[in-house]
């Protein structure tokens, strides 16, 4: 879909910080508040703006740590629909937080989130591997998150403002 430079500008602004008010976005993009409101509405409707996710570091919250696994899945593609049908099927499980078709040694890369290792093990053995066309699975449990969606979980000092308060 072809977007105007104004629409792209609005997207870039909210991509960086979706908490800005419509008023602020309008001032930054040099357009009216109405344009901002209409553009956002349109782009949400067109599913160009998919959602406004909040990135939470659950590992810091006691009792909420959870377990994440990345699973490499080999499947047999189906005539006429290729990988899409089986991918669609797998993506319906709420445990699956992301799903990609990959080039290389396996076909689908899945991220699964659960409360415990057992819960994920059960998902893999009972649900995922029993799906028709799934040939094999390799499960990797995630040990620590360093960076996710461009955000460093332990960003060190890059976020800190080291500058002198006033300088020429």
């Amino acid at each position, binding site marked *: 879909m072809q977007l105007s430079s104004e629409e792209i500008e609005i997207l870039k602004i909210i991509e960086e910080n979706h908490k800005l008010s419509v008023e*602020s976005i309008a001032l*930054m993009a040099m357009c009216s508040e109405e344009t901002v409101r209409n553009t956002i509405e349109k782009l949400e409707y067109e599913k160009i703006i998919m959602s406004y996710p909040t990135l939470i570091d659950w590992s810091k919250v006691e009792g909420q740590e959870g377990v994440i696994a990345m699973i490499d899945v080999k499947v047999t593609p189906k005539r006429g629909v290729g990988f899409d049908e089986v991918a669609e099927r797998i993506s319906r499980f709420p445990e699956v937080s992301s799903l990609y078709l990959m080039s290389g040694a396996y076909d689908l890369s899945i991220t699964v989130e659960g409360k415990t290792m057992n819960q994920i093990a059960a998902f893999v053995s009972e649900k995922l591997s029993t799906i028709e066309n799934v040939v094999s699975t390799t499960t990797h449990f995630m040990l620590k998150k360093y960076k996710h969606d461009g955000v460093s979980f332990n960003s060190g000092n890059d976020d800190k*403002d080291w500058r*002198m*308060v*006033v300088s*020429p």
Partner: protein
Amino acid sequence: MKHDYEHYLSQTAKELQPSGIRKFFDLAASMEDVISLGVGEPDFVTPWSIREATILSMEQGFTSYTANAGLLELREEITTYLATRFGVHYDPNNQIIVTIGASQAIDLAFRAILNQGDEVLIVEPAFVSYAPLVAIAGGKPVAVSTSPANGFKVTAEQIEAAITEKTKAILLCSPNNPTGSMLTKDELTEIAEIIQKYDLLVVSDEIYAELSYDEDFCSVAAIEGMYERTILINGFSKGFAMTGWRLGFLAAPKEFFQVMLKIHQYTTMCAPNMLQRGAVEALRNTYPEVESMRNSYRRRRNYMVQTLNQMGLVCHTPGGAFYVFPSIRSTGLSSEQFAEELLMEEKVAVVPGHVFGESGEGYIRCSYATSMEQLQEALKRIQRFIEKKGVYADSQSEKVKAR
């Protein structure tokens, strides 16, 4: 034995005025939770690949001196950069010097061209170092005031009016610190005519060249007839977010280069080797990051200019750099009072305009190189502050009337 230190010190050094910014720094630094719009540097950390290249160069043992003028590899990248970005062509072998920040480049330029008593026109409001550097080199700084009506852009007439027999050069800084104003190609062409007419030189501080928002930046050296009489100064501090690296460069006709190189080799030897290697990476591979920083500044500028104007602190739309320069005359306060009271009452630091020269009185410099959250909060506090002052000003005038 009691020493009379006054007697030991250089007359020129003693006569230098302490920077007016210093006072504000001390005051603001002593307070907590200050939101600062007083910072003259990017809020971005240097792109990682540049830092990484410097770390790697240290691992590889690049800890020696480099050529006086800087690593040839870097000078070659600089000439390519100047040619492709700004259309000005230099020879890396005998026209480029890598310096310790643009500041050292300005110092070199003045030392190379000034004789005792030569006058240098400084377009004001101006960065605080220019006039002292002229004085240190034995010259005499002459202020050329600009007017807010023209967005603080200097005009050919204003320059011509300030020229005397002793005028040797003019210092131009566009985009400008503190006003953010940028001279267009047409405006520069007009100024160039006067400069050529009186056979002057230009020391052109183009450190904010990468941060221009509405029009393409035009280098003074790119104007017809100006290449031969321009010492072009630029650096990595602002565009590449490398202020603390202290890396700048200058480009000039080789006759100037030779003299400046002589001074540079005796005073400085060369810029640090490992940092120069980081700068090579900066010029080769970080352009997308420079661009994304520029876009980010542009959006914040739009927000600042409109919001300040809405609240009655009138300002022109600056074409570049990361400063807005609003008038605070409507409050009835002087720049210094405004900045001081704003800091004490609302904990927002700005720089009073008068520290950049007389024509800056009645204005404040607000840097928007800080996060949107901070900017929004700062402007909220400024709004509250001027509402309070507005009431104050009104009641004062009522008192006057009552008398």
